[in-house]
């Protein structure tokens, strides 16, 4: 997961919009970046600029636009849409949404629905520890070896190395070599003189 979850609230009523935002802040459970949209016409610029992950949308503001059109417009195939229900709607309309939040929901219910929507796709990816292979690769990386050199040394394809490196970055949330170096030293994976990238006389 990359930073915060971006939620756009599309609801013409300022009171309801602000109320929902207050609840989201109160929940304080997920790293969220919330922004408001009063009219559907503004959606286009929101998609371009903010690229939201979730739309919380009052079905009645859509008018003749279908949910499919909205998803297409966003250019984000993983976009989730949650209906914000403040009056009676046909069940057939609500079914098209990923979830439905009612204005009578409690804070906990809203939180649960949002979490459900966000977490589903990548549930148990976190907190995994590194595999032996990954540790091996980290050591090579901080010694200054290129992907190709690592591949040759470990008898793997460069492609495999790249995908290992991607997994390492996801698990540790460290993307740079300098960052991996710190990680390796903390975990006593290397001796300092093995590291290529460090200036030797810079002690302070």
């Amino acid at each position, binding site marked *: 997961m990359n930073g915060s979850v971006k939620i756009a609230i599309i609801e013409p009523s300022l009171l309801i919009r602000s109320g929902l935002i207050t609840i989201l802040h109160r929940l304080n459970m997920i790293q969220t970046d919330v922004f408001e949209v009063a009219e559907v016409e503004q959606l286009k610029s929101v998609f371009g600029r903010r690229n939201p992950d979730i739309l919380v949308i009052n079905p009645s503001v859509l008018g003749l636009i279908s949910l499919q059109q909205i998803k297409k417009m966003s250019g984000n195939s993983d976009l989730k849409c949650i209906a914000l229900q403040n009056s009676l709607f046909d069940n057939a309309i609500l079914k098209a949404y990923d979830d439905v939040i009612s204005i009578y929901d409690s804070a906990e219910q809203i939180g649960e629905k949002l979490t459900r929507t966000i977490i589903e796709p990548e549930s148990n990816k976190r907190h995994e520890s590194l595999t032996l292979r990954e540790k091996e690769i980290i050591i090579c990386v901080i010694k200054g070896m290129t992907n190709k050199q690592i591949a040759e040394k470990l008898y793997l394809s460069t492609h495999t190395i790249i995908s290992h490196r991607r997994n390492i970055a996801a698990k540790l*949330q460290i993307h740079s070599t*300098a*960052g991996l*170096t*710190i*990680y390796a030293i903390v975990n006593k994976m290397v001796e*300092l003189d093995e590291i290529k*990238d460090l200036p030797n006389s810079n002690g*302070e």
Partner: protein
Amino acid sequence: MTNFRLGKYRESDSMSKLLCEKYFTLLVLSRFGIALGFGNKSIGEVCRDTGVDTNTFLTIINLLMDKNLEIKYSETSCSLESLTNYLHNSHTYFLNYRLPEIRTKLVEALDPAQKELNKAVLHYFDEYVLQVHKHMKYEEKNVFPYVRSLLQGEKKDNYNIGIFSKQHDQIEVKLTEFKHILIKYYPAKSTNEINSVLFDIFNCEKDLASHNAIEDRLFVPAILDLENKIGKKP
């Protein structure tokens, strides 16, 4: 209810009130070269006294206050010259003050028993600072002179602001990573020093992000506007 104020700040609002309500404006003030000690003067008066363009000042304040604020450059009547000076002073602040200060504090906060590790930590930070230097130097060397020549009515054929906005990266991202590394992996004792440097990094990160926001949302549109105007002239 005289203290009640809705929405954006205006010229007639008191400068000292603005500062007390939103203390981050202190940074904006010093980048415009406005000294403290202005008594009860309004924002407009203080700006005029120090030769600062009031519109630019207010636009920046309001943009920093509300990141969702919809800004159309053409309606702000910002001065591109003021804006450029502001950005230049921000660069000086980050490069000559903020980042060196964080480094000094970092050195003090690191656990002396972790000699090897500290070397790697400082190396990471130094590499980051180098990157920020490069990022800002590019703007100082290429973008600002370009803007100055535009302001004098010259349009160079070999450069346009599109080149800049395409490669304008978010320089705070690597600082965020650094912060994560310190928090998650550095075996520090819980000391006032480490807290203090972390607070500074949090602030600096936010400050860099808003610096970039000003460049992307105000500076670039302003230049585009001027490019179009000059391009239309025969």
